[in-house]
């Protein structure tokens, strides 16, 4: 092969893509042709310069943001409200409070609106020391009710100044031992 044909093969030969017969021809030629050998060196130099682009590093955070972007597109997530549980609790508490308040109001209203019931007791004259308490409309079949008076509780004697005092000596019987 002549120089023109060989130079046409150099671009692929420099990258290692030549077929076997082309490779043999190029190697045989450049061994004896300095001009074609220089041409081959130029292709190799261009290859080396291209290979320099393999080096380098991406800006910081590139791959993290790459995944973030892909995930947000493919797996969109609902925004989670961190105070959601608090809101729910407050909501339930408010509903409970309103319920209790309504219940109390209904109860109070019922008590106020209740008429003097037929069973309202009326005091009558004491019978045998007991206070008979009978409904206003007492029927003979109804049993009589009596209120037993509470036993009187004697309060301890208290002097005006608030102190307790022993009996006076003069109040003791004559001849009694004064052992105090």
């Amino acid at each position: 092969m002549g120089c023109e044909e060989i130079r046409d093969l150099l671009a692929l030969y420099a990258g290692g893509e030549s077929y076997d017969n082309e490779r043999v021809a190029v190697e045989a030629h450049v061994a004896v042709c300095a001009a074609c050998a220089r041409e081959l060196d130029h292709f190799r130099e261009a290859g080396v310069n291209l290979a320099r682009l393999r080096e380098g590093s991406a800006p910081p955070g590139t791959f993290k943001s790459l995944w973030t972007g892909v995930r947000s597109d493919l797996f969109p997530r609902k925004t989670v409200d961190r105070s959601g549980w608090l809101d729910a609790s407050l909501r339930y508490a408010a509903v409970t409070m309103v319920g209790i308040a309504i219940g109390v109001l209904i109860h109070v209203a019922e008590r106020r609106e209740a008429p003097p019931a037929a069973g309202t007791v009326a005091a009558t004259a004491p019978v045998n020391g007991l206070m008979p308490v009978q409904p206003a409309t007492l029927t003979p079949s109804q049993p009589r009710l009596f209120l037993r008076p509470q036993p009187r509780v004697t309060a301890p004697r208290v002097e005006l100044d608030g102190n307790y005092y022993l009996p006076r000596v003069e109040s003791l019987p004559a001849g009694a031992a004064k052992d105090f």
Partner: protein
Amino acid sequence: MPEAAEVSLIKRCQEGREDAFRELMEKYQRRVYWIAYNMLSNYDTAREIAQEAFIRVFRNIGRFDVKKNFYTWLYQITVNLCIDRMRKLSHGKTVDIDGIGGLADPGPRDPAETGERTETRARVHVALDRLPPKYKAVLTLRDIQGFSCEEISEIVGCTNATVRWRLHRARKLFRAIWEGKGVEIGDDSDAGF
């Protein structure tokens, strides 16, 4: 033939499991991002394209045949999105010169060397950016990402011979641009092949 673990992962994705999506994405996101970046020369646009590619893949993963290679399907979507974007944008505006090589390189920390690398990378991007999208795609996939011609033919959806032709043309064009020779870029058709 895809490996069993990946098939299992894809099947979990087809069930709509978020954890499986994340695992699959973590496996491929860097490659997808750098393909997009090398084709578009802009960090933000690359991230946008990568995100769009994964969204499209995950939306259509239910129809994916697990007997096929997942990664070629994913990279095909990525490259097509990049080509569409390149055609919409004017080439000069896609180059993010300030961003090229401006970040930490794994190489030596010598400031002079880092500055030289940065400049070289910027020049490579500018030269790449002048290539028609089809040539830029095969050059990126082969010389920067290191895919085989067979893999590239699956990704770009053409025959192995067409890939070789585009590579041949792309390398010649790139070299001419790199050396500052006046070149006629022309259209990106595979005319003559």
